[in-house]
């Protein structure tokens, strides 16, 4: 294995990804990521100096429209999907002490 993913890195990536992995899952994730990165390192064979990164194949521009509401009031339908709701609002766990 050319790439080595440390415990700290997996911990950090888990925070970024908002995933809580068990000890076993962490070990698996390390192995998976190492082998994927070994594979992705193939890209280093290519000389990409001076090549512009291409995020979209076609030019992407901001698309503007008038700020007019066109959709209806579907608050009830939207809230119906919430795991927890109260008084017409989403309920979230306490965030401020």
């Amino acid at each position, binding site marked *: 294995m050319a790439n080595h993913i440390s415990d700290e890195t997996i911990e950090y990536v888990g925070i970024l990804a908002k995933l809580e992995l068990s000890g076993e899952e962490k070990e698996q994730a390390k192995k998976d990521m190492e082998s994927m990165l070994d594979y*992705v390192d193939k890209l280093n064979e290519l000389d990409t100096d001076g*090549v512009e990164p291409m995020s979209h194949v*076609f030019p992407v521009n901001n698309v503007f429209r008038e700020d007019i509401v066109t959709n209806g009031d579907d608050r009830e339908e939207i809230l119906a999907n919430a795991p927890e709701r109260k008084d017409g609002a989403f309920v979230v766990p306490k965030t401020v002490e």
Partner: protein
Amino acid sequence: MGILDLTALELGRKIKAKEISAVEAVQAVLEQTKKAEPAVHAYVSYDEESALKRAEEVQKKIDDGTLTGPLAGVPVAVKDNICTKGYKTTCSSRILENFVPTYAAQAVENLIAAGVVIIGKTNMDEFAMGSTTETSAFGPTKNPWNQEHVPGGSSGGSAAAVAAGECFMALGSDTGGSIRQPSSFCGITGMKPTYGTISRYGLIAYGSSLDQIGPMAKDVSDCAALLEASASYDKKDSTSIERDEYDFTSALVDDVKGMKIGIPKDYFGEGLDPEVREAVMAAARTLEKKGAVVEEFDLGLVDYAIPAYYVIASAEASSNLSRFDGIKYGYRAKGAEGLHDMYKKTRSGGFGPEVKRRIMLGSFVLSSGYYDAYYLKALRTKALIKQEFDKAFASYDLILGPAAPTTAPKLGESLSDPIKMYLGDIYTISANLAGLPGISVPCGKDSKGLPIGLQLLGDCFQEKKLIRAAYAFEQTRTYEAPEIVKGGVQ
């Protein structure tokens, strides 16, 4: 000849001519679905009652002359990552198990306006991440040709539903081959249009710069008709492309005289099954006999498409899937302490292993210190791959090759080695990186009786060339359905 032996357009014509009613068509499909589902499991869910009710409404509108299109009354299936208003859309994930969209995807709106009847939502790899439909949280779909084999993926449910006669046509989505590869494995025709042709509004995002909805059907004519009915410029999708024309069925012409077709030598190297190679080369000879000019050429950079794809797709996935946080919709873990703990527990419990693997990789390649080395490197590679295709299309109208290196693998063979599974996407993935349209058409079967798909790729906006060549090739063959349909409702 029974209803299920018809193509979608043939059915549409018979409905128009009052030989078959929309309700009869839906009843035939539902009966076949009930028969085939225990073996195939193509659907995450389907709703008999609403399909029959909709068929009655559509029939009334056909009778009073409101609906006159070629697909009015035709039963259609929709992949479960494409939103249907008021009807569960799960992405085959626990995290969206009970999600009911408040709006429909633009492609679905367009199809409803065309008078189709939606039967249900098809199974898929969770969030479209996979090539076998085995990563679905609701169990795998089986290949209608042989239930020990996978249907391909991620649009495996849509491909299987069409092949098994559980609908006449279906919408799929293609991020790295997810329409073309399962179409190949299930012996049907599937097309990924040029990026931006069908609106992504209401398609639950995986890799936004690569995702494209597309048609899956029994033949090229049905595919062209479904593409025509689904595509539209849409202000609600900022990457939607306003095309000069949306008339694709006029390209259904049996004529490839003088068309220049290139075969990349790199597509026929190591890893390609000899039976697939033989069937695809025979298809090339068929097109040559019909007057096309067929040549081999060096495409270049073929081996770099998969690593570039997995960096870009995972990066975009990690960002897109951050919206699943257990607050606005979907699953929420119980017993969490505080907000962040709830996010983590919800996402860890709600996502399956392949989705977590890609979110982790995506978060890593976007993280500070690695962004340039991995993410930007992949985007630069993508630019080089696009240049290779530009060069190829300066000389050729179309590129011909296999849709996949093998026929459908057995269930359980693919997931143990992710990289091996990813390598199965080698022929399809670069079209997504370069935004190109591609089509997979059945071109034979292997000695196990499993279908083989021929893939044609065109330059951006050249769907009509693809459709013409695929249609011309198809005229030399007859559509074959698996046994599961033949023994079905007549």
